[in-house]
């Protein structure tokens, strides 16, 4: 059902279960296309739960922006079925990002050094790869991001 995410003083609810079920329908297909096995974009060291609460909202906000701006945009779905499933994920994550933007507007989504540092590490891993390959890898790692959110 609905999951409430406590990200410091930013509290949002989201249908993580629905997003996870949508992702599980395409995970194998997406991950099978990821040929670069020695690089990982989302690493345990940057996970949300290990981030101090005050910075969690900002870190998640930036990660979601990365997915919306550069992952879903650059991902080339092999067929209409995958295309629809990816659209569902993109629109669901957009809903979360809109909620985080509300927190930002209410000054409850500050960006401290830890969030900036962790996000820049993620970005540098992401930018080690060509855009298409990075999009495929990051989409395949969406279950890591979902697990981060489930653990918060």
């Amino acid at each position: 059902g609905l999951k409430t995410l406590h990200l410091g003083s930013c509290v949002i609810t989201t249908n993580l279960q629905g997003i996870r079920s949508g992702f599980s329908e395409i995970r194998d297909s997406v991950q099978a296309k990821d040929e670069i096995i020695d690089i990982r974009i989302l690493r345990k060291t940057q996970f949300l739960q290990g981030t101090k609460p005050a910075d969690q909202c900002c870190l998640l906000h930036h990660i979601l922006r990365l997915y919306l701006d550069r992952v879903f945009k650059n991902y080339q779905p092999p067929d209409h079925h995958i295309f629809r499933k990816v659209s569902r994920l993109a629109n669901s994550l957009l809903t979360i990002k809109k909620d985080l933007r509300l927190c930002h507007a209410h000054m409850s989504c500050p960006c401290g050094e830890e969030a900036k540092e962790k996000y820049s590490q993620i970005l540098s891993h992401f930018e080690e790869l060509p855009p298409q390959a990075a999009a495929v890898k990051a989409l395949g790692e969406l279950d890591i991001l979902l697990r981060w959110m489930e653990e918060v």
Partner: protein
Amino acid sequence: DGVAVLPAPQNLSMQSTNMKHVLTWSPVIVPEEIIRYSVEYQGEYESLYTSHIWIPSSWCSPTQRPECDITEDITATVSYSLRVRATLGSLTSAWSTLKHRFNQNSTILTPPGMEITMDGFHLLIKLEDLGPHFEFFVFYWRREPGAKEHVKVVRPGVLPVYLETVEPGAAYCVKARTFVKAIGRHSAFSRTECVKVQGEALPL
């Protein structure tokens, strides 16, 4: 075919009830010809980030009927744009786009159908199956002054539901409403239904 230009479908309209979303339009008529239609959609993400991209609907690309069940395509609580065009052989019409974007949180939620039954001294309720989005809040009480109202949350697919063990000679009332988590809304209450239990009331 004698048709230079195929007119675009008109009067696009969305009917959404209990999270079932159907797009309808006026048929394009060309005598003695079969017209096919294609429906496409864009979520808020596509509109904002990839506005040139439209996604063919799951069931209506193409279809011969002037309507399309897009329930499976509307999978997030964001606003969606929808468009339709007609096709006759190699001729295609212009796209017609639904005037107002559609969000599933505007769906009409109707009070649930329900049936109260007794199994011996067990009060049971059978609820209308409305699909995976729906939970039911069932309120029931013994019909007597100062009686306490009980609530039971029923998940989709659980039928029939035991409510309470009743006493002979007493009367019990039940009402229910639906709740859809994805949009955070519930329906109005159903009518209240009461049942009288057979037999003599137990001595106090």
